[in-house]
């Protein structure tokens, strides 16, 4: 009983991480129709920034904002060149461009941060365990669940309830109409790209205490985030959250029961779900003309 409760908590922590990462990707994908395969690199970059930050003795609670800012700045630069000229192109060109960039970033990060597994020097406050039904559970993961939940709420409020969020959603629905209202949509998209990349870095900084940081993690995270977004359905906040929890629970329990073929089973579950719901769990109604 205690064992399954701990595994459930693990699954929730992993799901929250997937959710944060998926939300960043989903923003760019559903709002700008841009396939950004560098999102995994943003995550790993955020992880490395957090590791270096915590190792340098700077105040630990600033590690996550620092990772967010660093990744957001990288996203802003990428938006100026070369992403902006690819927003209107087809997915094939976008996949090639961002895949090539992610390969480059992966190699650059291996050059800069080394090829070994890097774990952060967590502050004592986050290092202990709490006992749940007599089983130990890391405090860090509880904090992760809480922080992720709060962040998700903030994002939802930002995009669903503020005028700024309405501008972003309107730019997606009808870009030209928004421009006739005197708003610069390319600036809107630049900000969205920066926030999305920042979210990638932020989830990397939060996740590094759980998954550590190593070359190749960027690609794993990228695939998971892609699956989360597609599973949930494009353009919906609820969908991404649902997708993250399904994938998080499927992966955690597949690992518990059949560790050897966990990856295969998870992919099988994704394929089956997508066959049943081809447009994702929460699909916006679309008419094809």
């Amino acid at each position, binding site marked *: 009983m205690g064992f399954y409760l701990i595994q459930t908590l693990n699954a929730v922590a992993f799901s929250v991480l997937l959710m944060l990462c998926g939300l960043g990707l989903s923003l760019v*994908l559903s709002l700008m129709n841009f*396939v950004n395969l560098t999102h995994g690199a943003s995550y790993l970059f955020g992880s490395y920034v957090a590791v270096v930050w915590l190792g340098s003795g700077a105040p630990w609670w600033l590690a996550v904002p620092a990772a967010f800012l660093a990744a957001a700045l990288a996203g802003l630069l990428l938006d100026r060149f*070369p992403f902006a000229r690819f927003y*209107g*192109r*087809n*997915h*094939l*060109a976008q*996949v*090639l*461009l961002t*895949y*090539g*960039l*992610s*390969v*480059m*970033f*992966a*190699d*650059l990060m291996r*050059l800069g941060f080394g090829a070994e597994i890097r774990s952060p020097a967590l502050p004592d406050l986050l290092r202990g365990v709490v006992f749940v039904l007599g089983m130990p559970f890391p405090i860090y993961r509880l904090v992760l669940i809480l922080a992720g939940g709060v962040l998700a709420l903030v994002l939802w409020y930002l995009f669903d309830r503020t005028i700024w969020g309405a501008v972003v959603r309107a730019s997606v629905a009808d870009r030209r109409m928004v421009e006739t209202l005197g708003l610069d949509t390319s600036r809107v998209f630049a900000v969205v790209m920066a926030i999305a990349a920042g979210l990638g870095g932020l989830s990397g900084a939060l996740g590094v205490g759980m998954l550590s940081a190593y070359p190749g993690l960027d*690609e794993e995270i990228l*695939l998971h985030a*892609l*699956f989360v977004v*597609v599973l949930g359905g*494009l353009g919906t906040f609820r969908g991404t959250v649902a997708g993250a929890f399904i994938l998080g629970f499927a992966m955690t329990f597949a690992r518990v029961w059949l560790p*050897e*073929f966990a*990856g*295969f089973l998870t*992919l*099988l579950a*994704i*394929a089956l779900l*997508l*066959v049943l719901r*081809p*447009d994702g769990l929460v699909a916006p109604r679309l008419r*094809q*003309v």
Partner: protein
Amino acid sequence: MRAHAWLLCLPLAGLLALFGGDYHLRFAAEILITGTAVMSLDILVGQGRLVSLGHAALFGGAAYVSALLAIHAGAGLMPVLLAGIATGMLLALVMGLVATRSVDLFFLILTLVVGQMVYELAFHWRTVTGGADGLRGIPALALHLGGASWPMSGARSLFLLAAGLALLAYLLARSFLAAPIGRALVASREQPVRLAALGYEVRRLRLLAMVFAGGIAGAAGALYPFVNLYVGPNLVHWSMSATMIVMLVLGGVGTLHGAFVGTGLYLLVQTYLSSFTDRWQLLIGLLFVLIVIFLPDGIVRPGWRRRQA
């Protein structure tokens, strides 16, 4: 491909077969075999605008089956080729059944999902596939006909075999595209809704195209282990699929023969780069980016103008 292109290619292949050294012949065979698989991807990407990120799984899956047959059963050319084609078509059928319900981004992701399932099997089913180590010790290829058998292990015979396969696959693909089903596939790229209104089942059409392309990729995959002498999980990984798309774009999408040009150039650059620097991945990534920024239409221009949709 025009007449002057044939006049260039055939003597070139002949000269290479007569005077080429072992290393160059093997390298040329690898280009032709990989190029055949990339060309089959061109049927999907170029004619049907079905961008698949799982094509390497068809190619590599067939390579695994072929290598396993050769290692454990000592299979000759014909059984290996047939098994490879069957594997490619079967995997493509599964991939198609899952993915053809969707288009565009969802098609991309679903082919990626199915392809990664093949990768997971190749990586974790250690007793059969050798896991991360892959399969080594692939026996020499031989052709058994009736009671006689010819060894085909030399670089020259492998090159000729690969050239024959590439030529056959190219002609087959061209006749597929010239046939009504191929024209319908192009129509499904341009106007899927109108085509459906005309009574075509677009989904079935796409499924058939995928199975056909899978068969060609499977045939190429069947020969791959004998040229490369090693089959590893990286061959079925999605990054290989992405690399195949880059080769295709480099050569020119929608031309068929451009696939061979792109594959040749890519493999040349990769071999050259990896021989003189450790940071070749960085340069390969840079190459991807440069290609898509400066050469979006590839080296070989297609007959029709590509629309920027």
